[in-house]
Structures are given as C-alpha cells and as structure tokens.
C-alpha cells in the first residue's frame, strides 16, 4: 500500500502561506549616494540590519550591517553605499509560498530576501524572523478556528433548545467483519471528544461501546445496530441484534465465560471479559435476550460525574436501591 506522506502543521503552512502574508511591507530604502555614516543612522533608528538600495524605482543592491562593520574597520565610512553594497540580488516573488523563501535562505545563506511583484518591483523584504513570526501568527489563527469549532460543538445543547434534546448516532455493524471492528466505537469516542467530554468518562464510553460493537461482530448471525443517544447529561448506548440470542444471560455475565469459537479466541477475542468490562464502565447496564429473537443491550453512562451523584441521591429519595 502506498504510504501517505505525513505533514506537520508547520510544513503544511510553509507550503500554504504566500510570502506577502509574512514579509515586511513599506520597505525602508536608501539611495546609492547615501554615505555609510548616514546608513548607520538609518539602521539604528529603524532597528534593522539591512536595506535595499534603490536607484529611482530600480533595485540596485542591498546593504547590510555586515557591510557597515567592514567599512568601519577599514575607515571607509564616508564612502557612498554604491561602493560597498552587494549587487547580487536574491529575490522571491510575493505570491510564491514561504517554502520557496526557505529554500533560497538555505541555498544562498543570506540574511534577507528581496520580495518583488510580477513586474519585478520591490514590494517588501523578508528575513528568517519574519517567517517565524508569520508562521506563529498563522498557527494561532488556526488554533483559534479549532477552538471556536470545539466551543460550538460543546455548546450545541445550549444552542438548540427543546424539552428534551438528544443527538442520535446510528451505526450498522456487520457480523464477522473483524476488519471494521472498533470503527463505530471510534466514531462515538470522537463525537464525545468533540462535544468536550471528560476524558475519564470518554474512556468508559469507548470501552463499553467497543465491547458492545465487538459482541455484534463476534456473536450475531446477521450483525446488528449500535446506537448512541447523546443527551446533555447522559449517553445511552444500545446494541441491538436479531439473533441468535443468549440462552443464559447470568452465565454470559460471569467473568471468563465465553462461547467464542477457537478461531476467534486466537484473534484475542472471546476472553469472556467483554460484558464484565461494560458492567464496570457503565453507570447502568441492562441485557435482555431471547433465543431465536435477539439481544438488546443498553448501557447508560453519565457524562458529568456530578450528575451521576445527583441521580444516585434522587434514587435514594425514591426509596430505590442505588
């Protein structure tokens, strides 16, 4: 199978972001006749380390702080910039992606690149620092977008008002289709993640949903349905099938009891722990089964630890055992 290359967010952005989004605009420039002493003031006042040299609208060269230091050492500070500038111009186009700039920085080992438009006119200047700042800015924008979408998902139950709102996720699970095992439960888990569930609760939901899903795959004749009903306070997971049914539900519930054939056990299933796992993770679980008709399992998990306690104390008030 072909390997899909993996990109980090940064790599993706380096390819996506155009140079004009990160470059410095309103470029400070000097003329070829500016003296090195004047240049020193331009660099100092603007706190920059280099400037393009422009002859009218034509780009003539670049002069940097390194050139200035050399001039100082040689006592050539009254020389015009023209004499000491670099005329090797390394340019990038403003509509190219940042990756092109990164390549040129590596290739030419320069501190800054001149950014030009389609007509070759100077529109900006780009340093390594500009790229870093641009990427950081873009990442935080992306991060905010993700935050907002999470926030919206989290508050869906507050936004949509009814007497009783619930979100129902239905998954069809095929018998003996081990390759798809865990797909439905992964999706339920992801939905809860999205809705801002508590990690400890999500873990219990994931384990119960997975075991219920695997039971449909391993034990049913024709598969079944895994349904997750999400309400603001509670998730109800139902696994429903049309047979063969469980002859002795109590026995099925005892740890280590399994009816899985050997080939399934060799895959690591059929430990006889599935229903136990569900029972441990669920706040309530019911299993009803009739041989020849089918099985219906219902798992209830409270999404907020506080609501579980409330529920328990209400039950006690009603005189029911909790």
């Amino acid at each position, binding site marked *: 199978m072909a390997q899909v290359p993996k990109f980090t967010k940064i790599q993706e952005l380096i390819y996506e972001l155009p140079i004009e989004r990160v470059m410095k605009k309103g470029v400070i420039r000097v003329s070829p006749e500016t003296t090195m002493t004047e240049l020193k003031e331009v660099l100092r006042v603007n706190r920059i380390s280099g400037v393009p040299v422009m002859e009218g609208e034509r780009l003539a060269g670049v002069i940097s702080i390194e050139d200035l230091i050399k001039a100082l050492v040689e006592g050539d500070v009254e020389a015009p910039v023209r004499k000491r500038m670099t005329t090797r111009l390394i340019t990038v186009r403003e509509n190219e992606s940042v990756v092109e700039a990164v390549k040129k920085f590596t290739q030419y080992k320069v501190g800054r690149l001149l950014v030009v438009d389609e007509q070759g006119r100077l529109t900006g200047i780009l340093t390594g620092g500009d790229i870093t700042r641009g990427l950081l800015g873009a990442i935080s924008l992306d991060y905010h977008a993700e935050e907002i979408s999470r926030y919206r998902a989290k508050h869906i139950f507050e936004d949509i008002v009814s007497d009783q709102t619930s979100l129902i996720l239905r998954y069809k699970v095929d018998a003996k289709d081990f390759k798809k095992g865990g797909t439905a439960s992964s999706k339920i888990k992801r939905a809860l993640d999205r809705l801002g569930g508590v990690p400890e609760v999500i873990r219990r939901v994931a384990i119960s949903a997975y075991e219920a899903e695997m039971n449909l795959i391993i034990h049913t004749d024709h598969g079944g349905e895994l349904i997750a009903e999400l309400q603001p306070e509670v998730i109800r997971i139902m696994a429903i099938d049309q047979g063969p049914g469980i002859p002795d539900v109590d026995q099925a519930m005892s740890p280590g009891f399994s009816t899985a054939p050997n080939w399934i056990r060799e*895959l690591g299933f059929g430990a006889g722990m599935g229903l136990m796992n569900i029972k441990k993770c669920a706040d309530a679980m019911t299993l009803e089964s009739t041989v020849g008709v089918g099985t219906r399992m219902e798992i209830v998990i409270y999404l907020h630890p506080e609501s579980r306690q409330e529920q328990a104390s209400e039950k006690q008030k009603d005189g029911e055992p909790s």
Partner: protein
Amino acid sequence: MTSLKEIIETLNLETVSSVSADGRSVMAGYASDLLSCAMKGAGKDYVWVTLQSHLNVVAVASLSNLAGVIITEGNRPDPETIGRADKEGVVLMVTPKATFTVVGELTRLGVRGEP
C-alpha cells in the same frame, strides 16, 4: 516517565507505521494477547505488548489513546493494519523477541505496570 523514542532505540524495535514517536512519553506498560483485557488494563500513554498483529489491535490502541503497541515474536501487521495505524496515529513497533523478554527490557528502562 520514559520516552517512546528511547524504548524504540534501546529495545531495537522496528517501527512499521509512519506515525512519529517523537515527543511521546510512556506512562506505564501492559502485556496481554486478549483485546478485552488490554482495553481494561491499558490506558492513556501506555505501551501495550502483544503478539496479536491484526486490525483490531489498532482499534484498541486508538480507543485507549495508547502511546504505542509492541508486536512480538516476529508477527507483522498487514498493510491494511499499518494503513489504519497511520490514519489513527498509532505507533506500531515489531520485534522478533518474545513478550516476556520485551517486558523485562521495558522494566529495566523504568516502565512499570502502573503510572
């Protein structure tokens, strides 16, 4: 806390999924070939040692947010399993060593059964 990278280097494991192990920390370890037991016994940032190598290993690892899975005794996941691991962000590692040996080496690196 041991880094997954250190485990891969010290135990000389071969990573078969293209998910990067960089920056992953291993909180604890768990060993079993029964998937329900791994579901129960291994949690977030655990490393799971098993000789099972089929698709459902990835499902369990992803559902439990494991740090990675070490597949022992020279068993190799098929391309479909590896593809799923890449998609789900599961680090799959293989070794010819037996589970017992791997667990011993993990223990020596400071990985315990509980965080």
